[in-house]
C-alpha cells in the first residue's frame, strides 16, 4: 500500500469544519467588496493613466508652447499630442476590456494569463509614455542646438548632448524602477505560480 493511501484515508475521514458559517453570514460575506489582486491592478492602472496625464497641469502650457514655437516645433507638438491622446484612448479601452475579461471560472492557467495581459497593457502604455518623453527631450535638444549653432562651440554642443541624455536616462530609470517595484510587489506570487504551471507546457 502506498504511503499516501493511509493519509488519503485520514483525509477522507476528517471531520467537518467546526466553525462553519451560517446562511446569514454567507449572505453578508458575499455582499462585501472583493480585495483581489485584479482589483488592485485595476486601481493602480487607472491611477497611472490619471497621474501620467495630469502631469500637464503642472506645466505652464502657454509658456511651453511659446518655447516650442521659438524653436519651430509647434506643429510637431500639436500633432503628436493628438496622436498621444488617441493612443491613450486605445490603451484605456484595451485595459478595461482585459480587466472585464478576467473571471475566476476560467482554468487556472488561462486566468493567470489574463491577469498578466492586463498588467502588460498598462506597462506598454507607460513604456510608450517614457519613450515619447525621451523622444521629445532629444528633439527639443536638437532644435535648440540647431537654433544657436552659430553661437556654440563644439565643446558646448557635446556638453549639452551629454547632459540631456544623462537627465533623460536618470529620469526614465527612476520611473521604470518605481514601476517595477510597484508591480513586482503585487505580482510576485502570481508570476511564480504561472512559471510553475507553465514549466512543463513549454518543454513539451
Amino acid at each position: 500500500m502506498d504511503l499516501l493511501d493511509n493519509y488519503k484515508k485520514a483525509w477522507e475521514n476528517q471531520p467537518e469544519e467546526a466553525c462553519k458559517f451560517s446562511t446569514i453570514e454567507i449572505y453578508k460575506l458575499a455582499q462585501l467588496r472583493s480585495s483581489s489582486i485584479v482589483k488592485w491592478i485595476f486601481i493602480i492602472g487607472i491611477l497611472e493613466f490619471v497621474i501620467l496625464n495630469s502631469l500637464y497641469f503642472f506645466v505652464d502650457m502657454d509658456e511651453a508652447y511659446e518655447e516650442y514655437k521659438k524653436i519651430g516645433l509647434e506643429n510637431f507638438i500639436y500633432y503628436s499630442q493628438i496622436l498621444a491622446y488617441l493612443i491613450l484612448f486605445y490603451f484605456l479601452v484595451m485595459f478595461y476590456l482585459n480587466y472585464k475579461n478576467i473571471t475566476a471560472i476560467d482554468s487556472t492557467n488561462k486566468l493567470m494569463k489574463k491577469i498578466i495581459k492586463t498588467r502588460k497593457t498598462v506597462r506598454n502604455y507607460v513604456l510608450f509614455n517614457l519613450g515619447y518623453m525621451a523622444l521629445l527631450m532629444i528633439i527639443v535638444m536638437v532644435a535648440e542646438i540647431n537654433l544657436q549653432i552659430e553661437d556654440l562651440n563644439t565643446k558646448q554642443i557635446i556638453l549639452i548632448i551629454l547632459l540631456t541624455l544623462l537627465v533623460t536616462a536618470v529620469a526614465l530609470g527612476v520611473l521604470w524602477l518605481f514601476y517595477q517595484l510597484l508591480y513586482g510587489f503585487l505580482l510576485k506570487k502570481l508570476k511564480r505560480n504561472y512559471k510553475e504551471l507553465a514549466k512543463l507546457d513549454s518543454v513539451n
Partner: protein
Amino acid sequence: MKLQKDLEKKFLSDFETNQNIVHKICRIYTTDRNAHNDLFQEITIQVWKNYAKFRGDSKFSTWMYRVALNTAISLYRKSTRKVKTQDFSDVAYKIKATDYDDTEEVQLKALYKAIHKLNDIDKALIFLYLEDKPYKEISETLGITSVNARVKMNRAKEKLKNILNP
C-alpha cells in the same frame, strides 16, 4: 427582482451545503484563523460574483473547486490586517467525532503540515488528488494537458512523500 432573489437563494443553499470544501482549501492555503476567514470571504465573493454564469451542466461542487482554487492561487492577496494568531494545525481539530480514530487525527495533522510546505500549484494538485478528482477534471481545472497533469501530480506526490517521510 424576483429572479435575483431566486438566484441568491439558490446560491446560498448551494454554497452552504458545500462550504466544507472551501474550508479545506482555506486550511491548505493559510496558516492562521484570520487569513483563513479572509480567504473564505474572497472565495465567497468570487463564487457569488460568477454564480449567474454557472450553467448547471456540471455539478456545483465541481464548478466551485475551480473558482475557489483560482481565488486561492491567483486572486487572493494576503490581507495587511493579518494578525499572527495561534498556529492552525494545533487547534483546528479539537472537536472530533466519537468514531474518529486517533491515529488518523495525527496523520491528518501531519498531512496538513506537510502540504503547507508545498508551492501553490502543488497544493492544488495534492488537494484534488486527496478529493479523489479524476485527471480529466484536474487538467481542466488547472488548464494543462492530462499528460502534464499526471507528470506534475507524480512529482507533487513525491515531494509530499519526502516531506512526510524524510
